[in-house]
């Protein structure tokens, strides 16, 4: 019935869950599930990408293993997600990147760093590479600004196009109509839900693993990582404006906006990923997908390296090590960028799109136009269950 074993299992579980519905209040997956009576592969892709893997439904489930119904929704949907990333990858030839993704990303990152270091060594004279440079334009004595801009612009554009085309394939996979994906109210709500990680909280009690200590570790560290990343991106954007609009060249003073934003973001990108790695180790192994473990760790480590190399570069930019550190940092950032469409980064995009569709469905249901079997009159009249 389903295309793969992983989808087969997810389909089985959604049938179990849809006849139980106890977890309806836990997150978005279950209300979305209830709007369906049977589940196509596309439905399962959609539901899987709504899941934040908080694990609450696993802890709450009376049918989780060792029960013979063997219900483990977080793990099953995580496996579906990995398949959905690979199936939507653009170009398709690179979908293999999602198979052993940890290894693939490590190789790509190592290559990228090597190329940058080798490039710096090869193209700059040895004296300049290990000399102290300071003041505006110091970086560009090693790599001319236009070359740097061209390289990173190309990498960014490539990543953006590949991600957009993957997203398009993903949306097509669950058969959403154009109007299902273009409702501005739904997008506003989805932005709020993803920006606040509303559904990474087990319906209000935190992730399953947090039950005992009541602190939502993953949410806190994910926020630090995501907003850290966003601040770093913003720092780069401000610096670009400085460069082209005001003719002010990097590096900037420590109290200047790009450095302030970058420093804050960099701290987020160091503390956040470390926290996420620790939180991952503390999780119940049962809900952590083996299929996505390497991918998760690879992306977290890439973000950590981005933050760490950036901060070290900032600290040592007035020393002779600057050249080598700049090469390292640029290598890491380049590696991060070009692998974005082929790694865990894509989860954010797909989750957002799934949430946008979910919000749209809620709006349609609220308007009474969805043909859902959510409250059959047959059940409405009973008092017993």
């Amino acid at each position: 019935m389903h295309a793969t074993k992983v989808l087969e299992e997810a389909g089985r579980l959604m049938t179990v869950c849809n006849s139980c519905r106890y977890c309806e209040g836990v997150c978005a997956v279950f209300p979305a599930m209830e709007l369906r009576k049977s589940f196509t592969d596309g439905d399962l892709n959609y539901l899987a990408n709504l899941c934040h893997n908080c694990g609450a439904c696993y802890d709450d489930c009376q049918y989780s293993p060792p029960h013979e119904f063997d219900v483990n929704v977080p793990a099953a949907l995580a496996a579906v997600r990995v398949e959905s990333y690979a199936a939507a990858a653009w170009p398709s030839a690179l979908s293999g990147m999602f198979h052993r993704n940890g290894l693939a990303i490590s190789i790509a990152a190592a290559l990228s760093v090597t190329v940058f270091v080798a490039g710096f060594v090869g193209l700059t004279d040895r004296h300049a590479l290990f000399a102290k440079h300071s003041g505006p334009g110091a970086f560009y004595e090693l790599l001319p600004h236009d070359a740097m801009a061209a390289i990173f612009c190309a990498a960014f554009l490539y990543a953006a196009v590949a991600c957009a085309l993957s997203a398009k394939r993903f949306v097509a996979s669950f058969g959403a109509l154009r109007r299902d994906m273009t409702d501005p109210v739904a997008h506003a709500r989805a932005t709020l839900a993803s920006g606040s990680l509303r559904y990474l909280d087990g319906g209000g009690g935190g992730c399953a693993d947090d039950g005992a200590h009541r602190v939502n570790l993953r949410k806190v560290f994910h926020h630090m990582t995501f907003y850290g990343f966003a601040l770093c991106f913003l720092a780069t954007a401000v610096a670009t404006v400085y460069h082209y609009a005001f003719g002010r060249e990097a590096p900037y003073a420590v109290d200047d906006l790009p450095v302030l934003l970058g420093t804050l973001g960099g701290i987020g990108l160091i503390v956040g990923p470390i926290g996420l790695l620790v939180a991952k180790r503390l999780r119940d192994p049962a809900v952590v997908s083996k299929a996505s473990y390497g991918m998760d760790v690879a992306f977290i480590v890439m973000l950590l390296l981005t933050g760490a190399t950036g901060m070290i570069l900032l600290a040592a930019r007035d020393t002779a090590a600057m050249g080598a550190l700049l090469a390292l940092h640029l290598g890491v950032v380049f590696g991060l960028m070009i692998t974005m469409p082929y790694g865990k980064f894509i989860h954010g995009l797909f989750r957002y799109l799934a949430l946008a569709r979910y919000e749209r469905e809620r709006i349609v249901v609220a308007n009474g136009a969805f043909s859902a079997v959510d409250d059959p009159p047959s059940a409405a009249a009973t008092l017993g269950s």
Partner: protein
Amino acid sequence: MIDSKQFDVVVLGGGNAALCAAISAARQGAAVAVLEASPKFYRGGNTRHTRNMRCAHDTATETLTGPYGEEEFWEDLLKVTGGQTDEQLARYMISESKKMLTWISEQGVRFQPSLGGTLSLGRTNSFFLGGGRAMLNSLYRTAERLGVTIAYDAEAIDLDIEDGGFRSATILYAGKTKRVGARNLVAASGGFEANLEWMEEYWGPRARKFLVRGTPYNRGSVLRMLLDVGVAEVGDPTQCHAVAIDARAPKFDGGIITRLDCVVFGIVVNKEARRFYDEGEDIWPKRYAIWGRLVAGQPDQIAYIIFDASSIDLFMPSLYPAIEAQTIAELAGKLELDPTQLSKTLAEFNAAVRPGSFDHTKLDDCRTEGLDPPKTHWARRIERAPFYAYPVRPGITFTYLGTKVDRNARMVMRDGRPSKNMFAAGEIMAGNVLGRGYAAGIGMTIGSVFGRIAGREAAKNACN
């Protein structure tokens, strides 16, 4: 650690009632032990399979759509039990149930609006966020935080009770027998519905074909021991709450997802492919609760709900797909029924159906004429392929036999004297207020209210 200490209160059982008792006693400062017969995963007995509790409340709340007063609750209870209840005790429980919503929230349990498919309960019943196991997890966390000693795989095999006074329990724990002494006992170990040999005493060999909807650990051994030492019994020992559930369900612990609520949409035939009861008799409470008993009365304790394409989308999905066929003969083949008889039964039924306007939300005017047994409502011809069937068997939810208690949840001995230090809560004493029938969520009300009282009274007793 459980064998060396003398406890103020020992609680036998590990479900809602047991944990409410343990928490309430611990909050009074008592040293409490919870002895749960099951392994950790299966802790909590039938509470694992619950999803809501029925508490009286005067106003709507965030999760309840309107008020549900004490009087209305009482009337509902009177209706489902047909008067087989202890009015004083029941009214006291209902009045106490008002405080439970707050109290149980204070123990970490979280609520949500009623689930999809249960809108009719949105006013009366409070649904646990994540269901019964989520509720249990919260209660266990709270009990642990309060210092309650909890032992799993700890089945009570003997009780040292003299003259209505509890002294100690002998448990089988980690393969060894241990004696656990305590000043007070709270029995909250459920009924005996998973003990099919015991059920056989009343139902004969038929009981072997019954499915048990909930925990396999409710074997009634504590109940048996208590009744054997002279605790007064309450409730009809021969009765149990049974509904028709999917015959493909596992023997134990299938829970909510094996329920089928589509009897009204078709006809129900037995192994001989003959109808045996009016499928359109009533909306509530009979339709759901009566069919377990009806199927138990049929040969081999099996029956088949048969309907057609016009009804397949009208009810909640369940775990197992309906058996599907393009013709009645093909369906009969799949069900291993006599095709000639099944076609005949259907033809007779279809011929007897009178025109009417179908409305499954009320007792409509679609009925049969000149058919025995008749289908008095929702009768529509079964003629549009594909045809569908669900095999059903009796699924036992709980038993009614229990220990008699007073309003302090204190057990009453057969001679009418109250026990010195023995209390009961939950299904083991549900028969005091629920002599028959059932209303959604009332088992949890009984467990929480009497559990809380039992724990409090036992702790008080320990200080005296």
